[in-house]
Every structure is written in C-alpha cells, then in structure tokens.
C-alpha cells in the first residue's frame, strides 16, 4: 500500500520521504531548546513545592534564605505579583495557573515559593534551605470507582459526559452472550525528555518569553491575561521543543514564575522544572476505573453496549479523562450508553495526555471485544466486521470515510493472522508462552482555524510563516512539503518559520490537528500566491506576501463523523514462572488521511505504538495514601519502555485521503497509541489463558495469576 498523492500537485513533495529540515541541527547539538538560549545577566529560579497534600501555608521563613550566597529574591504568596483572579485560559477556567496567589495548598507538590539566585547551584541550595510552615488538613487521595464524592460532569473536552439510547437492561437480558467486566488503568505521566523551561525578560516594554510551549500564541495570550498585559506586548518563542504529549500547552509554574521573577528583579530569569517536579506541576493522565457491558446475539452482533468510565480530578478544577468516548463512533447497538464520571481528590490536576480518553478507553473496550469474540467463538476481526456501524452510532451522521476493515484486512495479511490458532495457552517456545492479539484504533480527525503568510522572495525562494510548533512531529518539514507542492517548486526553495507568537493566530500542536490545521492555512495562501505569480508579476525587493485565514473554509465543513482508524497487532511471549512479558513484534495499519512525509509519519505511528507497549507493561505512578505523594516520582521509579523492551514495530497505512481537506490530511499524532495496549493484553491472554484487566501487566500480576489456585482472571 502506498500513500495518496492525488489531491496534491506538482513536485510530489507530499508523500515523499524527507529528512527533517532541522535534522542537522538536532544531530549536531546545535538546536537550542527553551532552557538553552543564553542571556546576559541571566538569573536562575528554583521552585519550592509543598510537602503536604492539603492545608495552608502558615509562613515562609525567607529572611535567612535571602542572606544566602547569590540569592536575589524569594517569591511566595505573601509577596508575589498579583495575577488575574478567576483566570480563564485558552482552554477554559484554569486556577492551576494562579500560582503564589493564596495560602491554600491543594495537593502535594504545589508551588509555594520561587527562589531566584545568580546560579542554579545557589538557587537549588536556597530552595532546599527554605523552611515553609503549614497548617495541615486531612487529605484524601484514594481513587476508586465507588468513591462517595464521585459525580457526573456536564461535559468533557471530548463532548457530553453521557450519551444514551435504547433500553440497556432489556437488550442485555435479550442477549445470547454478555460480557460484563471491569478494567483499570493507572496514573500515567507524560515525561517528555525536555523538562519544562522558560526564560522571561522585559525588553523595551515588551515581555519576551522563550518557552518550551506546544503553542506560543496560547501561552502568550494566557500570560498576557494572567498578568493583565496587552496581548501585543507579550512575545513567546519556542523554536525546538523536546516533546510535549499534551503537557506543554498551558501556563504553568515554569513560565508564570519566570515572568513574576523577571518583573520583580528586573533581570532575565530562567526557570526549569526538575524531573521530580514534572510529576506534580504539569498534569498527567488520570487513573481510570471502567466497566464495560456488551450484549450480543450468538452471531456476535451487538444488542447492548455500555461503557462507563471513572477518572479523578483535583479540588482546583475539573478535568475529565473521557475514557468512554472511544466507542461513540466505533460500535452501534440497539441500546447504547457511554458515561464518564469524576472523583475530586487532593491530587495534582490531570490534563491532556497523548490520546486523552481514547488511550485508556480503548484498552478497556478493545479488551472487552476480545472477550466477546472468545465467548462467541468468533475471530476478533470477524466480530468487528459484524459490528461496523453504517452511520455514527450516537450522532446519526454519515462517515467522511471509515477504512477500519481495510486496515484489519491488510494487517491480518501482513501479520499472518489467518493461520492463528484461537486457543489460548497452547504455544510454548522454551520458557516462553507465546500468543497474538489484535485491537481496533480510532481518533477524531479535526481542523482548527489558523492564519499564515507565504512570501515569494525576490531571490526565487519562498518563506512560509505560520505559528506552528514542532514538538518532534516533523511539522516544519511537512509544512515545507505542502508548500513546495502547492507552489510547484522543490522543497529546497522553501523556508519555514514557526514557533513564534508574533507570527499570529494558529492552532497549537495538539489533538492530532496540528499539521492538518496549519497545512490548510498554508494551502490557502499558497494557492493565491501561485495565481498571483502566474500573472507574471515582478517580485519587488520585499517580496510578495499573501496572508490567509482558514476560519471560513473550516467553518463551511459539512458535519460528518470524521476519524482516523487503525488495526493493531501484537505478538507477546510470557514467562509465567517469572512474570516477565516481552512483546516480540507489533504491526499497525492505519487509515489516517494523506501521509505527507512517510519517514516522519512512520516515526509518529511507531512512537505511538511504543507508548501503547509502555502503557501495557510498564507505566504506573503509585500514590502513597498516607502522604499523598508519589512513591515513584522519578525516572528510576516511573518506568516507561527502554530500548530493550521495544521489538520490531512496523507501521504502515492504506489510502484514505480526507475528501474535504485541501491536502487530504487527517492527523496521526495520537492514533498509534490507541488500541495498542489492548492488542498486547489480548495477546497475553492468547499466550497464557489469563485476562489482565488491570494495567500495567506487571510481573507480580502475571505471577499472581499463574499461582492463583483457580487460575483464570484477576478480580
């Protein structure tokens, strides 16, 4: 299978593999990330975080610390600059950004002070020496699906909290086969390799911030609002970002405190989070407790579908990890219900993390589907084929395209699925039991209005200006390819400028919508520029610039179910005598729109699948109930997959250009993780005969299942 190029023109840059435009800078160490841009007179801020989970700051003993070598300032709630009360950020009300404004401590690891010093060594020691007195209150960090504080929110970022149609109990009672199981996923953390960093300084009345943000305009707007500044007087740059995964879009302690500190001391100030602080200051994926009830006829056709998910939020604000949203466009049934609930606790506020909702939701639902296939005696792929919806199960809208079964068919052929013996626990290779599993993936395909400017320079080159961000996706290169094709010139003649709030309004890097949203705006400008150049206009020294705004075109899009799809396959080996699980190979086949750059797109798919592997086997933040702190809040304690855990992973795609997008793009940043953990869990069942419904599938859990007197699944 190859990528689609039919909707684009000329040079064939779109669809051709191209190494990253910033690749040379990255492999030679020349690419500078936010914490690496030098400034004269730079001072260093070190954040002090709370050591109690709930209470109030009674006092901060800053007097002795201010006398320590090199210390310039100690900011705390008693002296910090005031921020806008009731702050509403780019994604809604955001009290998490209101830092050092009051004495309340909502969770452990909450920022209670910033020490600023001449060197980072001095700042760290002063922060360590700073004594903060607390009035402590009893806390509650114990998450459970049945928690008494649980409630059903009005909605989440993924849509309504609850959708319902039909009579669930009646359909369940009428079903020949019923699956009714509970699944859990633990607290997971983004852990981008680059810690969040910001340098702030005042420059001729303008606030300049060099930040690790996934969206400079959102950050600039939020900082302007927080500090009551004219938005035009805030300038945020982020040329290279060391991964974000959803954690680097919002105003958070590093950039808010850097701005506060530079305002107070009148020098440039850099604040960099420590790895440990990243476990409490930037958000994370909530744990989930999910119940899935599926009722089907003997032929596997669904009559009842119920997916009920519970997640936690902080006492500061509501964030819903909408795990049950995954099935809303995937499977239909006479009775169909999806619901999300939340439990507010004395914990840090969760946030968007790669495939929010879909990642944990697909684990539960795609595991349950495997269980239904087993009970029906059907091949899991056949079960999905029998449950393809004709229209959106919840919306009734037509699908723009739905190539899920094409993905399964292509994947099954390449993985060797058809020769699979469905019986569990019968394949042995030395000390290993071997099995295979599959699962479906989907992710919404969206676009957000953006602006761009494309200039035909007098020297025959072109400059694309758009406030995109490249968190490692390859956005810079992809946009260059799109522009090259649109203009009918080689990529070498295109210059791409991104990551600067002065470039104007554009969507940020998130929601698998970046490349599509930006490319749309670029294509509008490029089309007009090409027409103007076709008229034979002379190019003046300042060049010819065309500006674009995609708002109107995107607003005119017909309402449809628009999604990417994928089929995940995994082969695992399990040693039930030690509990070790090794993934031997994975294959993902995706239908995800036009693939602009196969080289970097493959990296994104494979990276997402690697996240799925990591989620299935490794990742878990463990909260100590007595203190409210994490017991493993560093990279030696919080395991994500190391190189040795990751086998051959192949990703490929089928033709699936979005018919309503000027380039055919859908978005690929998140779908790779969706369903991957379920495919692995299903393979573990196939290997051992034991269902693992709680992630991660740790050695102690595998051992526990193997030594349980009755065998079978864990409760």
């Amino acid at each position, binding site marked *: 299978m190859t990528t689609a190029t039919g909707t684009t023109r000329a040079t064939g840059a779109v669809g051709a593999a191209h190494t990253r435009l910033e690749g040379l800078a990255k492999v030679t160490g020349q690419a500078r990330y936010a914490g690496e841009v030098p400034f004269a007179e730079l001072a260093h801020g070190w954040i002090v975080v709370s*050591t109690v989970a709930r209470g109030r700051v009674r006092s901060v003993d800053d007097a002795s610390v201010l006398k320590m*070598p090199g210390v310039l300032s100690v900011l705390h709630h008693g002296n910090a600059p005031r921020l806008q009360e009731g702050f509403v950020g780019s994604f809604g009300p955001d009290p998490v950004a209101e830092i050092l404004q009051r004495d309340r401590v909502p969770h452990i690891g909450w920022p209670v002070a910033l020490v600023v010093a001449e060197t980072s*060594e001095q700042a*760290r*020691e002063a922060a*360590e020496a700073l004594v903060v007195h607390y009035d402590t209150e009893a806390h509650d960090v114990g998450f459970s699906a049945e928690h008494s504080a649980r409630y059903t929110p009005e909605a989440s970022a993924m849509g309504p909290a609850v959708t319902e149609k039909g009579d669930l109990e009646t359909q369940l009672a009428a079903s020949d086969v019923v699956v009714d199981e509970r699944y859990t996923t633990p607290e997971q953390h983004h852990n981008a390799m680059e810690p969040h960093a910001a340098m702030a300084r005042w420059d001729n009345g303008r606030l300049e911030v060099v930040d690790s943000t996934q969206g400079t305009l959102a950050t600039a707007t939020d900082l302007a609002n927080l500090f009551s500044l004219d938005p035009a007087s805030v300038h945020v740059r982020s040329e290279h970002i060391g991964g974000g995964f959803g954690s680097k879009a919002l105003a958070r302690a590093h950039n808010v405190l850097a701005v506060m500190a530079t305002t107070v001391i009148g020098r440039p100030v850099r604040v960099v989070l420590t790895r440990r602080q990243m476990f409490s200051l930037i958000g994370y994926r909530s744990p989930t407790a999910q119940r899935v009830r599926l009722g089907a006829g003997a032929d596997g056709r669904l009559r009842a579908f119920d997916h009920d998910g519970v997640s936690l939020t902080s006492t500061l604000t509501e964030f819903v990890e909408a795990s049950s949203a995954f099935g809303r466009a995937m499977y239909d049934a006479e009775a169909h219900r999806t619901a999300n609930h939340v439990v507010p606790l004395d914990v840090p506020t969760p946030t968007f993390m790669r495939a929010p909702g879909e990642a944990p939701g697909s684990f539960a639902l795609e595991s349950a589907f495997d269980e239904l296939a087993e009970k029906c005696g059907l091949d899991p792929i056949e079960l999905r084929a029998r449950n393809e919806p004709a229209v959106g199960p919840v919306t009734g809208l037509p699908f723009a395209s739905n190539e899920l079964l094409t993905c399964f068919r292509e994947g099954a052929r390449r993985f060797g699925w058809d020769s699979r013996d469905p019986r569990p626990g019968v394949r042995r290779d030395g*000390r290993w039991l071997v099995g295979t599993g599959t699962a479906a993936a989907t992710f919404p395909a969206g676009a957000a209005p953006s602006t761009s400017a494309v200039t035909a320079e007098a020297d025959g080159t072109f400059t694309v200006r758009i406030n995109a961000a490249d968190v490692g996706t390859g956005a810079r290169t992809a946009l260059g390819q799109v522009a090259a094709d649109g203009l009918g010139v080689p990529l070498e003649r295109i210059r791409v400028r991104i990551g600067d709030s002065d470039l104007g309004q554009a969507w940020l890097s998130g929601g698998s919508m970046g490349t599509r949203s930006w490319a749309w705006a670029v294509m509008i400008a490029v089309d007009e520029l090409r027409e103007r150049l076709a008229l034979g206009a002379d190019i003046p020294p300042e060049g010819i610039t065309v500006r674009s705004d995609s708002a109107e075109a995107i607003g005119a899009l017909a309402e449809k179910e628009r999604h990417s799809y994928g089929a995940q396959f995994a082969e695992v080996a399990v040693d039930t*005598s*030690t*509990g*070790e699980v*090794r993934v031997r190979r994975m294959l993902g086949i995706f239908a995800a729109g036009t693939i602009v750059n196969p080289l970097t797109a493959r990296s994104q798919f494979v990276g997402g699948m690697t996240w799925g592997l990591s989620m299935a*086997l*490794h990742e878990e933040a*463990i909260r*100590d*109930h*007595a*203190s409210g*702190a*994490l*017991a*493993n*809040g*560093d990279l*030696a*304690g919080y*395991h994500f*997959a*190391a*190189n*040795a*855990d990751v086998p051959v992973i192949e990703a490929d795609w089928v033709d699936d250009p979005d018919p309503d997008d000027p380039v055919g793009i859908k978005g690929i940043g998140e779908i790779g993780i969706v369903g991957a953990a379920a495919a692995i869990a299903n393979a573990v069942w196939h290997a051992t005969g034991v269902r693992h419904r709680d992630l991660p599938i*740790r*050695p*102690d859990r595998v*051992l*526990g299942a*193997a*030594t349980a007197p009755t065998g079978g699944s864990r409760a």
Partner: protein
Amino acid sequence: MREFGYERAYDVSGAVALLGADPEARYLGGGTNLVDLMKTGVERPALLVDVTQLPLDGIEVTADGGLRVGATVTNSDLAAHPEVRLRYPALAQAVLAGASGQLRNMATVGGNLLQRTRCGYFTDRARPCNKRTPGSGCAALEGEHHNHAILGASAHCVATHPSDMAVALAAFDAVVTYETGDGPGELALADFYLPVGDTPHRETALPPGALITHITLPPAPVAAHSRYRKVRERASYAFAIGSVAAALDVRDGVVREVRLAYGAVASRPWRAHAAERALTGGPATAAAFAAAADAELAAAEPLSDNGYKVPLVRNLTVTLLTELTEEAAR
C-alpha cells in the same frame, strides 16, 4: 546541595587522612549514587575526598587462584575482564545487568557495595524513613512496598539493597579489605552488611572513616559454572524485583557443590545457606531444587504486596539450577 570542599587523593593513606574522622566527609568514587543523593538532599557532605585516582584499579589473579579486585575498578572493567568472565561468569553477568553502560563506566566496585537503597521513601526527605532519619518511622510498611524485602527485614525497615554485583559476590564468599587510620582490616561479605534490627541506618560493619581498598574472591572452581538471572519491571535499566546467582557442580546427577544467593529480597545480598545445605549431596532434580528454595524461603515474611517474590525467587532458583545441570551434562 550545600557548598562543600573537594580534595583529590593520590594514595590510600592520604585519602584516609584527608577524610579523617569527619562525619560530614565522604569518599567520592564514580558518584553515581552519592551525587544523586546530594542533589535530593539526602546526603549533605561538607567534604568530598575523590578516590578515583588511587592506584586501586587493578584486577589480578591471586597465588591460590582467586581474584583480587581493586576498589576503584569500574563496573565496566570488572565485567569485561577475561578472568572474571572465565572464573566467575555470574559476577560478570550480575554487573552487566546492574546498570546502563554509562553508569558502569563510572561506578566503582567499592561504591557499588556501598550503594544506598532505592526505596522511594528513603529518597524523599519529606517522608518518614528510619534509614535516613532514625526514629522517624517506616512509611513503606503500610505504604508502597511491592518491591521491598521479604527476608531479614524488621518493623523498622523493609528496604532492599539494590546491588546486583554484591549478590554474585555473596555467592562466591568475597572478602572486603579496607584501610583506616589505625591500619587495614577485612570483612567477609557475609559480615559486611549489618542485620537491619532497629538500626537500619547502620548498614555496614566498616569502621568510621574506613576506605574499601580491595575485594578478594577466593578460588572457587564451582564458580566457573555459574549464572545470574535478574527479573525487573522492564527489560533493562531498572533495579531488580528478584534475582538469583547460582553456581553448581553436579556429577552423575548428584550435587557436589552449590552456591546460591538472592537479590532484591533483603537489606543485603541474601546467601541461601539453607537451600545449599538441602541440596549438597542430593539429587540434581527440579523437585530437589524447588524443595531447597522452599527451605530457604520458609523464613520469608512477605508484606501485603510483595508476596510474589517468594514464587519468583523459587522459580528462578529452579530454572537456573536446571540450566546449570543441563549445561554440565553437555
């Protein structure tokens, strides 16, 4: 991290003199554990005495056919040394499994023995920990302890020792030689680590200010037939949740000599004497291996969440001894 002095020592007596009896001074080897603990504030030395330039970086075969390993030999050089790989392959395997290549290049043999536990409560200064702050309590007992000790722990501390290397050394009866201001001394590895009791903060029997100079491995022909197997929660770059070093001399189906030591189950590498006694002179069968492990693990006192370590170590024992038996038959 507070400000501290730094001195580089060039000979052993100079190093010992520089450290003196200063309780706020520390020897600096590879720094892979100490510098991290200084960053988190668990260690706050006033003076570091850098011992990496001492002439203690040699590995030599002793007259009786054992090995003498200098304390500043890096983990990398230990694991790569042909005599180690030939005579004590489980030791090489343990070191190779112990840390990443970068860490092994830095970490010294002496420092490896003196590593501190990776218990999350020990490294978080805001939490109770009797090992870090005597008398403050043990948060792990009722808290997160799925990777804590099942053997030899106490109500005061259930932390494990993180070293893989030390597990193999325990199996091979290593002897630790040290220098003090009052002259040299030595400790069998079996006596090197103190029982936990009510003093978990006292970890070794080294006198104050002592500098480890060598580790001596007595000759042990059985060690040439040895293996180390480590189980962890990812395939590499993680501490053990259970490990076994095993050496076996089997002839005609009878165990003539066996060495067994367990890692990640106690505050120190756990030499499995009871299992060794049960096996010696008996049949080399899976049933006998399992019974021997059971004999050793009868003393296990698991907490609520770490009971899995009992079957894990038991199964590892059977697997390794079975593999060694099969190897001997080839």
